[in-house]
């Protein structure tokens, strides 16, 4: 029987491939190419200049600062999110009568958008007479003091991430065989011991996967900055992507914007790539 090449399957995948190529691969490649050009204020490439945009980028103290801000943010937000969601998962690992209620409460931040979270937190953290300052008898200017604004954004970031992380952690913690835990209990192991020597090794692939995914997202942080702080006060919350956004959409310095996009892209790509490779290997734990 002669097999002829069917065109049918190509038709089925055509639309999807078209969308993905047009809005993901094409812009990624175009951004890289344009970052090597002198781009005028009308966003037209004028002349090939090699790595000059990158040299300018790395000699811009604003960009160097934005790398610092981004990594500070990510290195606080990601571990805190993981720790909190792990604790919540341990709380709810055993199914009890009321567990439906608290499982829902732990996961519900997932339903909230960046803008709703930003708006609600900005009111709760109102510097003069907000509820948080009132309840804890603080007098912190959350959004105007350059020493604490990033902390306020970390707060929001952690809260937004808890839900998704919690659900992953929960499914990992519940996957730990009950016999192992019971055996440990009979041997007189306490809660901390059980977590350390049984649960931790078994859920570590999930934790590492979440770490990389969260890192990828935290390094791209930009929504709350656009909504609440515009990078301020005095650059304290100017993340890499916000730098790119500002240079591209407000200042029209496209060369720097494209170069910053590529750097951010490479950093985020590496984080997610590690997660991706790890996950394919890591799920086979016995």
């Amino acid at each position, binding site marked *: 029987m002669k097999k002829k090449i069917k065109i*049918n*399957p190509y038709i089925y995948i055509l639309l999807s491939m078209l969308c993905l190529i047009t809005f993901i691969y094409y812009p990624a490649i175009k951004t890289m190419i344009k970052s090597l050009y002198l781009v005028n204020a009308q966003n037209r490439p004028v002349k090939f200049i090699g790595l000059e945009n990158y040299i300018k980028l790395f000699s811009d103290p604003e960009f160097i600062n934005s790398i610092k801000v981004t990594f500070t943010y990510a290195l606080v937000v990601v571990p805190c999110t993981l720790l909190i969601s792990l604790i919540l998962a341990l709380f709810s690992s055993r199914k009890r009568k009321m567990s439906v209620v608290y499982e829902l409460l732990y996961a519900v931040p997932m339903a*909230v958008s960046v803008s709703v979270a930003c*708006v*609600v937190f900005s*009111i709760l953290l109102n510097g003069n007479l907000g509820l948080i300052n009132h309840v804890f008898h603080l007098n912190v200017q959350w959004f105007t003091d350059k020493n604490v604004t990033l902390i306020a954004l970390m707060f929001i970031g952690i809260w937004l991430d808890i839900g998704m992380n919690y659900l992953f952690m929960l499914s990992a913690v519940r996957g730990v065989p009950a016999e192992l835990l019971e055996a440990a209990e009979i041997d007189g192991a306490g809660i901390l011991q059980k977590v350390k020597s049984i649960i931790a090794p078994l859920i570590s692939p999930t934790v590492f996967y979440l770490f990389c995914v969260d890192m990828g997202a935290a390094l791209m942080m930009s929504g709350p900055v656009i909504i609440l702080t515009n990078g301020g006060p005095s650059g304290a919350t100017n993340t890499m992507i916000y730098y790119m956004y500002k240079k591209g959409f407000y200042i029209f310095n496209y060369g720097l914007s494209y170069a910053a996009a590529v750097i951010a892209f490479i950093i985020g790509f590496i984080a997610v790539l590690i997660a991706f490779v790890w996950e*394919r290997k890591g799920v086979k734990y016995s």
Partner: protein
Amino acid sequence: MRRLKNKKIKSIIFQIFFIFVGLIIAFPIIYSVSASFMKATDIVGLNPRIIPKSFTLKNYKEVLESTNIIRQVFNSLLITVMACALRLLVAALAAFGFSFYEFPFKKLFFYLTICTMLIPGEATLLTNYETVSKMHMVNTYAGSIIMFIGSGTSVFIIRQYFLTLPKSLHEAAVIDGCSDFRFFCTIVMPLSKPVLSAAAINGFVQIWNQYIWPKLMATRTEMFTVQVGLAQLNSTQGSSYGVILAAAVIALLPTLLFFIFFQKQIAGGMVAGSIKE
């Protein structure tokens, strides 16, 4: 007997504690609903309250009257439903191609599809904006929708499900002279309701909550989505806190209800999307 009783009491205390922790986690949500019924001076003032002293609907009345929020909710709904439906259709077609056919370069195309999950969308904003504005789609619904159609994750999840359908179904359909497209429409799709609904629910929450792209796509307030309108209201000098929170609750309500009713599907769909096989 007594020991059993002790255990029961302990379990109840645990559960009360766990719920208490949950209330702290969900506090911003509970608070925003509660405060949206308060007077502005009870939200931010000398004695900010958690539970309203007096219940007022004034904030809702004002947000409906003085902002474009009804239109913005409509915009959000239209964009979300259209994008979600198209995403599902496009992804299901692709997943069908990937799971019921063998063809040259199948692997390449499939990896291209999955690897899109590795590329952070934020880094391509500027170029995508350029593309879409060249297509004259700024300030149109199409401009927002088109960006959310392609989804490697959706293709992946749906394909995983299609692969579990028995191959004999396809053979039987072919023998009966059923065309592939009809097989897809009348057999595969109806059989795949669980995965399709999970993908739809996740897509809805995700697209409804988008902020940056819809913001770039709308320069006029009547084209804003509710998320963009809310952020704008928050940054406008002189907006009352009560009104802002009422708008926040309106923006939050659809996804919150979705989440409460479909929590299982959301959790399942999400974990399935993380490339486990």
